[in-house]
């Protein structure tokens, strides 16, 4: 019997392994997170949302688990897995999974759903474009005040520009969050340098780095020495153009100094959605106040937005960090409106 019989071996080991106990069962709330397509350690939406979910779980004495999504077709199944395992809270990440999250929330009223970066829109009927339908009691979209984050980025841009010209490249002009970011940015820059000139261009495309690069190049040739990207993948081209021209780029949504390591050398800051904070706070809200519904805006009042740490500048211009802090305080108190 020299021959290895792998089938028998495997089956014996499989039987043995049933005896090793179940993992991850603790007391308290069971919180599950389904990621956006990609990987968990993406230094972007997935990673920071997951950190937030873990923070939240710790704060409420619960346990957290995550399923990483590799294909859009798996969204439903991944959410359902947490439903079948009787999880109390399910957090889903990114706008693309919104449709499946809404359906799951409607089908499982006993489970709380949070959608990170999902603006929930339930049309009342086929012709309703204003989201007049009823959002389920157990589903809350976590959205962000982009104008405030853009304002803080604008303060940075207005402070560091030498030419007095700065630029912003947007993805689409008909997507409100993009427009809000850029409006806030303009006003933020003007608050520190009232005569600053802001060049704005919408590429009308979120997936075309080449268009972003071309657009940013034009702005830089017109004298802009800081460019802010609010354009998804198109934005990577914007930042690349900044790097090539040795001017400053400003990232968006997450700290892109971390998420885009190739472009680190020219990213000075990012207008940030504080995903970690938003996810953690959402779980605490559910624990304290019960079912959460509607769209919940994360802004300066709940530390939901901010400017990423200033990078690559040494020394950091005098007073810049104080100005950011002061503006955040003023937005918190309602004294300062970014748009």
């Amino acid at each position, binding site marked *: 019997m020299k021959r290895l019989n792998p*089938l028998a071996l*495997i089956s014996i080991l499989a039987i043995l392994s049933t005896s090793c106990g179940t*993992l991850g069962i603790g007391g308290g709330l069971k919180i599950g997170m389904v990621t956006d397509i990609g990987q968990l350690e993406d230094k972007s939406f997935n990673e920071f949302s997951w950190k937030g979910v873990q923070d939240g779980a710790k704060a409420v004495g619960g346990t957290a*688990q995550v399923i990483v999504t590799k*294909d859009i077709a798996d969204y439903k199944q991944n959410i359902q897995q947490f439903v079948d395992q009787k999880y109390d809270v399910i957090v889903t990440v990114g706008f693309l999974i919104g449709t499946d999250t809404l359906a799951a929330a409607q089908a499982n009223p006993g489970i709380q759903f949070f959608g990170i970066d999902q603006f929930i829109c339930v049309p009342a009927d086929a012709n309703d474009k204003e989201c007049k339908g009823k959002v389920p009691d157990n589903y809350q979209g976590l959205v962000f005040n982009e104008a405030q984050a853009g304002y803080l980025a604008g303060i940075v841009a207005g402070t560091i520009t030498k030419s007095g010209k700065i630029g912003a490249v947007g993805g689409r002009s008909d997507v409100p969050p993009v427009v809000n970011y850029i409006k806030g940015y303009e006003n933020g820059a003007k608050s520190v340098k009232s005569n600053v000139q802001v060049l704005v261009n919408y590429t009308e495309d979120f997936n075309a780095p080449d268009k972003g690069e071309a657009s940013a190049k034009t702005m830089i040739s017109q004298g802009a020495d800081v460019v802010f990207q609010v354009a998804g993948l198109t934005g990577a081209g914007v930042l690349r153009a900044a790097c090539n021209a040795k001017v400053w780029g400003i990232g968006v949504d997450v700290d892109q100094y971390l998420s885009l390591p190739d472009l680190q050398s020219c990213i000075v800051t990012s207008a940030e959605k504080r995903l970690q904070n938003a996810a953690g706070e959402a779980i605490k809200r559910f624990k304290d106040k019960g079912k959460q519904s509607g769209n919940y805006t994360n802004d300066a009042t709940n530390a939901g937005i901010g400017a990423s740490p200033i990078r690559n500048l040494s020394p950091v211009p005098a007073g810049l960090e104080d100005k950011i802090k002061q503006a955040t305080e003023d937005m918190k108190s309602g004294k300062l409106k970014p748009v």
Partner: protein
Amino acid sequence: MTRLRAAWRVASIPVYSILLALLVAAVVIIVSSTFTATGFDPLLPLAAYLRLLIGAFGSPSGISNTLVAAAPLMFGGLAVGLGLKAGLFNIGVAGQFLVGAFASAVVGASLAGAPMLVGMPLAVLAGALAGAAYGFIPGFLKARTGAHEVVTTIMLNNAATLLLTWAVNDLVRAPGFTFPRTAAVGESALPVLIGRNLHLGVVLAVVAIFVVRWVLDRTTLGFEIRTVGLNPEAARYAGMRPVFITALTMTLSGLLAGLAGSIQMLGVIGFYAPGITASVGFDSIAVALLGRSDPIGILFAALLFGAFRAGAPLMQIETSVPIEVIDIIQALVILFLAADLIVRRLFRVRAAKPEIAELQTVTKTWGGTTPSTTPGGGD
């Protein structure tokens, strides 16, 4: 009994490759466990594989998930396998899949309010035809100009992604969403037959397995495809038209890939958006190789890969083993299939005649050393 033995002779290398891949991946899991919160755990692979098994087959919904995940891989595997039978390596399944999915999404959405018996068949048909058209392009180029299908299909994959992104952005974008996507397919969706998600597409996929098998084994066309694959010169000498067969096979391959996209769209996803990934496209190549281009082999290979996909969530929840392990296993399976000498040595499988013809096609087409398989190329 002899039939069983014959079947085992064909299946032994793939089965051993899978086992070997699981063993090597187990080592990876153990090693990586030392870097995680769980700490060093030599039994972690067993716990993970057990959850994988339970997740995929341990409950009716698990089995349903496995079948639903396997269905597009069956179509995709058949698409690649059919090409390999004719000596063609279609790497364009990813692109043909997307084109098929998009066509079904658009036609489905425009008939979302029509009766299911009208909208659904038309949406499926649109996906199949779009895939076929997209497969015809490299087929035609190869037949006419000798342009290598590996090169053209890879490029057409990128062309599909970008073209469809543009189309969703600017042509068929649905109102009311903050991101570009098509409207929901509504009534055109493939009906769910059993449970929560076992849709009609699964039945279509299994039917396709037997249809393709019948075509390959029992029809003149199938005979010609196989002959052209084995030796185009001999096929020409025998009065067949290798040029025509090449173009036709790529078209049919594209049709099957388009159907993969169609059933995925109408059975599972429900709308097209630029973020849609076509992991099915590349997994299909692995499925075809593991199934040795044989429709029945592809059926089992697709079920295995579908089971991996369906079992992975439970594995992640209960053992915190990352889903990337699945990718490692799938890659290792292909590695061991290609390097079958390792498998033969380890398991003392007698060396047989050059059995894995499809792998030879892959190496041949990549190396480009067989001008005879590019009919018309020398003209």
